[in-house]
C-alpha cells in the first residue's frame, strides 16, 4: 500500500478547470468564426490562422526563453487572445501588422505582467488599440463583405463600416434620415460608388463592413448564450453594458433624432456585441463582485457612447473596455461583495 496523503480540506474538487473555461470560450466563438469566413472568405482564414499561431508562438517563446517558467501554452488562453485579436482587425490587414499586434498582445500586455491572470488589461484589446493608433490607415480600411456561396465581382473591394460612415456624414452636416435614405457617394479605390448603410436585418446577420469577428450580432449572441448557460460569463457586465448604451443613446435619440441615431443601430453595428460578450467579460481584467461588474458595465457603456458620438474614433468599444480595465482594481476596492452578517450601522 502506498503512503497516505495528508492535506488540508477540502478533499474533493469541482470539475471546473482553466482549460474547460478557455475552450468553452473558444467553442462559443465558433459561430462568429464561421460567419467571418462566410463573408470574408480566405482572408478571414488567413488572418485568424496567423493571429492564433503568432500569439501561441510568442507565448511559448517568452515562457521558454525569457521567463523560463512552466509552459502553459495548452491552457487555451493564448488561443483566445489570438482569435479575439483577429476578430478585432479588418480581414485585409497585412501579415506583418498582425504579427506586431500578436506580439503586443502577448508580449507587452500579458507576459510582461507574468502571464495568465496577471494582466490588468485585456491583451487582445491592447494589441488592437496599439495597431489602431499605429496603423490608422490599414486598420480602418474595411473589406466589403462578399458571401462565400454567392461570390460576385464587387465594384469596390473596400468600404466603410456603417458606424464610421454615419459619423463622417453627420460631421459633414447631413441628417441621420438623409444618410440612411440616400446613402453616400464616395470615392473608393479610385471609383465613385454609392455606399448605402445596410438595413438592420443585414447588420444583425453581419453583412456589413467591419472587423472579422464583430460583424454578426447574431453569431455573437449565440456564443454568448452558450457561455451564459455554461456559467463561463456572468450576466452582470453584458446587461449593464448593453443597458447603459441603450439608455444613453436612447436619450440622445429622443433629444434630436436628426443628429443622433437610434439605439438599435448602435447595438448592431461596430464592435459592441463582440466587446460586450467576449472582451468586457474577460475574467482577468474585470471586477470580481457582482456589484462591481455592474459598475464596470455601466462605465463601459457610457464611455463607448461618448467616444462614438463625440470622439474622433468612430468606434469606442475597445477604448472604453481598456479604460474600465484600469478602473477595475479601484472598483474591486470600492464595491466589495456583501458579507454575511455584515452589521449595517445607521
Amino acid at each position, binding site marked *: 500500500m502506498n503512503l497516505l496523503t495528508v492535506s488540508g480540506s477540502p478533499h474533493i474538487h469541482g470539475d471546473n478547470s482553466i482549460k474547460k473555461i478557455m475552450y468553452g470560450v473558444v467553442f462559443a466563438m465558433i459561430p462568429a468564426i464561421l460567419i467571418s469566413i462566410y463573408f470574408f472568405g480566405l482572408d478571414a482564414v488567413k488572418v485568424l490562422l496567423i493571429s492564433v499561431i503568432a500569439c501561441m508562438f510568442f507565448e511559448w517563446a517568452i515562457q521558454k526563453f525569457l521567463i523560463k517558467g512552466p509552459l502553459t501554452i495548452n491552457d487555451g488562453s493564448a488561443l483566445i487572445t489570438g482569435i479575439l485579436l483577429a476578430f478585432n482587425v479588418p480581414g485585409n490587414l497585412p501579415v506583418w501588422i498582425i504579427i*506586431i499586434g500578436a506580439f503586443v498582445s502577448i508580449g*507587452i500586455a500579458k507576459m510582461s505582467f507574468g502571464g495568465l491572470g496577471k494582466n490588468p488589461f485585456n491583451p487582445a484589446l491592447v494589441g488592437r488599440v496599439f495597431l489602431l*493608433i499605429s*496603423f*490608422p490607415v490599414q486598420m480602418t480600411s474595411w473589406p466589403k463583405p462578399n458571401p462565400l456561396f454567392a461570390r460576385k465581382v464587387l465594384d469596390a473591394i473596400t468600404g466603410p463600416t456603417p458606424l464610421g460612415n454615419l459619423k463622417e456624414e453627420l460631421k459633414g452636416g447631413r441628417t441621420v434620415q438623409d444618410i440612411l435614405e440616400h446613402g453616400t457617394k464616395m470615392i473608393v479605390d479610385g471609383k465613385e460608388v454609392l455606399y448605402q448603410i445596410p438595413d438592420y436585418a443585414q447588420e444583425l446577420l453581419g453583412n456589413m463592413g467591419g472587423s472579422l469577428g464583430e460583424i454578426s450580432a447574431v453569431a455573437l449572441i449565440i456564443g454568448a448564450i452558450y457561455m451564459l448557460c455554461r456559467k463561463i460569463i456572468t450576466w452582470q457586465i453584458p446587461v449593464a453594458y448593453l443597458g447603459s448604451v441603450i439608455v444613453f443613446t436612447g436619450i440622445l435619440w429622443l433629444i434630436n433624432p436628426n443628429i443622433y441615431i437610434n439605439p438599435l443601430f448602435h447595438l448592431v453595428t461596430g464592435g459592441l456585441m463582440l466587446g460586450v460578450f467576449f472582451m468586457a467579460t474577460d475574467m482577468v481584467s474585470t471586477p470580481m463582485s457582482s456589484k462591481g461588474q455592474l459598475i464596470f458595465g455601466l462605465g463601459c457603456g457610457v464611455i463607448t457612447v461618448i467616444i462614438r458620438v463625440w470622439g474622433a474614433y468612430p468606434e469606442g468599444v475597445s477604448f472604453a473596455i481598456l479604460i474600465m480595465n484600469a478602473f477595475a482594481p479601484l472598483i474591486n476596492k470600492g464595491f466589495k461583495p456583501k458579507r454575511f452578517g455584515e452589521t449595517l450601522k445607521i
Partner: protein
Amino acid sequence: MNQWKNFSKGFIKDNPVFVLLLGLCPTLAVTSSAINGLGMGLATMFVLVCSNMVISLIKNLIPDKVRIPSFIVIIASFVTIVELIMEGFAPALFEALGIFIPLIVVNCIVLGRAEGFASKQSFISSLIDGLGMGLGFAFALTLLGAVREALGNGSIFGYKFIEGDAILVFILSPGAFIVLGYLIALLNRFKKTT
C-alpha cells in the same frame, strides 16, 4: 582613477535615467526623435555642469537654511541662459522642446546633484560629476529617442531607413512609457548577468 570613476558612473552604474530614475518628465516628453533627445540632453548637461561648478565654488558662502532657494536661483539662471541661447541660435530645437526647457529647473537630477554632490565636493569633482551625469543623461535621452524614432518613424537622426509606415505609437506618448520601461528592464537583466 577616482575621478574617472566619478565621471563614468553616470553612464551605466548610476545612470540618472535608467538607474536613478531622475528627470523622467523630459526624458519621456522630448524623445520622439533622437535629435530632440540629444538636444535636451545637452541642454540639461550644460545646466548641470555650470550649476555644479558654481555651487561647489560658493558652497561655503551660503548659509544652510537658504541653501535650496540659492541653488534654485542659480539653476534657474543657467536654465534661462540656455533658453535664450537656444532661442537665438537653434530656434527649431527650441520650439520642439517647448516648455521642457524651462522645466529643466525642476529636473530632479540638477537639484539632486547640486544638493547631493556639488554642495559637498570640490570644484574639480563637481565639474567631472556634472559632466559624467550630464553625458549619462544625454546618452539615455539620445538612446531612447533613437529607439523611438527608429520604431515609430523608421529613421534615426532623421535618416530614413525604411520607407512607408512604421509603428506610429512609439513616437506618441504610450510609446515613450513602453520603450523606457523595456529599456530599464533590459538594463536590469544586463546588470544581473554581469
